[in-house]
C-alpha cells in the first residue's frame, strides 16, 4: 500500500540508417535521455527524473526500448523524448527519433501490449514484403504466433473454468 509507483514507457527507435539499431546499448541510451532531460527541463527535471530512471529492456533487432520512471515525473520524461534526435556510438552519429508506443503501470501490461503490437506488425510486414523466401518465413512466424495465441487463450479459459467449478462446488 505504500510503495513507489512507476510508469513504464514503451518506445521504438526509428531511423533511416540500419546501423543505428545495431549500435543500441542500454547505458548509452540511458545517458543520452538523461542529458536530453537536463537540457529540456533543467536541473530540476534532471534531478527529479533520474531517481527512478532505468532502461529496463532493449531489443536491438526491433529497436524496442522499455524505460522506467517515477509516476510523479513521467510527464517530464515523456515530453523530453521528442527532443532526442541522434544516437552516438563510438564516434558515429546516427539521426533517429523515439516513437512512444505505450505507457503502462507495470512491465506485464507493456509486455501484453508488445505481443499484440508485434503480431500486427508481422501482418503488415507480410503485406509489404516482396521476396518469396521472406514471405514464407513471415507466414511461418504468423502461423506460429496464432497457435501460441490460441494456446494462451485456452489456458486462460481453463483457468476461468477451474475457478467457476470451484465456486459451484462451494
Amino acid at each position, binding site marked *: 500500500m505504500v510503495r513507489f509507483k512507476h510508469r513504464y514507457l514503451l518506445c521504438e527507435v526509428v531511423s533511416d540508417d540500419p546501423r543505428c539499431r545495431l549500435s543500441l546499448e542500454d547505458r548509452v541510451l540511458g545517458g543520452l535521455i538523461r542529458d536530453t532531460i*537536463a*537540457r*529540456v*527541463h*533543467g*536541473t*530540476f*527535471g534532471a534531478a527529479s527524473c533520474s531517481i527512478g530512471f532505468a532502461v529496463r529492456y532493449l531489443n536491438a533487432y526491433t529497436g524496442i526500448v522499455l524505460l522506467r520512471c517515477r509516476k510523479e515525473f513521467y510527464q517530464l520524461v515523456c*515530453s523530453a523524448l521528442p527532443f532526442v534526435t541522434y544516437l552516438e556510438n563510438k564516434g558515429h552519429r546516427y539521426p533517429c527519433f523515439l516513437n512512444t508506443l505505450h505507457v503502462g503501470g507495470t512491465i506485464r501490461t507493456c509486455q501484453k501490449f508488445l505481443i499484440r503490437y508485434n503480431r500486427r506488425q508481422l501482418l503488415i510486414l507480410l503485406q509489404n514484403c516482396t521476396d518469396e523466401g521472406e514471405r514464407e518465413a513471415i507466414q511461418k512466424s504468423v502461423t506460429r504466433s496464432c497457435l501460441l495465441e490460441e494456446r494462451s487463450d485456452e489456458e486462460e479459459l481453463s483457468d476461468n473454468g477451474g475457478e467457476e467449478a470451484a465456486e459451484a462446488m462451494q
Partner: protein
Amino acid sequence: MWSALEKMPAPATTYERIVYKNPSEHHYMKVCLEFQDRGVGLNAAQFRQLLISALKDLFGEVDAALPLDILTYEEKTLSAILRICSSGLVKLWSSLTLLGSYKGKKCAFRVIQVSPFLLALSGNSRELVLD
C-alpha cells in the same frame, strides 16, 4: 409528478454560469538586484539575459521560453517590475532565489513585492515612512 414535469415546455432563456477562480492571468513582481561589490552595471538587455539564463539553469529550455516581460527597469538602482503568466510565477521566483552570480560576481535578487494586480505595486506599505 414526473409525467407533469416531462410535459412542461423547455425554458425560453438558457443560463450560462462562468466561474473565475483567478481573475488575473499575469502576476507582477517588483525585484531589485544586489551585487556584493559596487560598481556593476547592467543595461536592460543584459538584465533580461540574466533572468532567462536563471530560468534555463533551473527549469530548462522549455521554461526559459515562458512569456516574461520587463515592464520597467532602472539602471541606477537595478530594480525592475516583471510580468509573468500566473502558471510560471513559482518557477520564476524559485529560479531568481537560486541565482548566485553574474559573470563571476556574486549577486542576489531581492523580491520586494508580488501581486496579481499592477496597481498594487504603485504603493507599498512596507516602504511607507511615517513622520
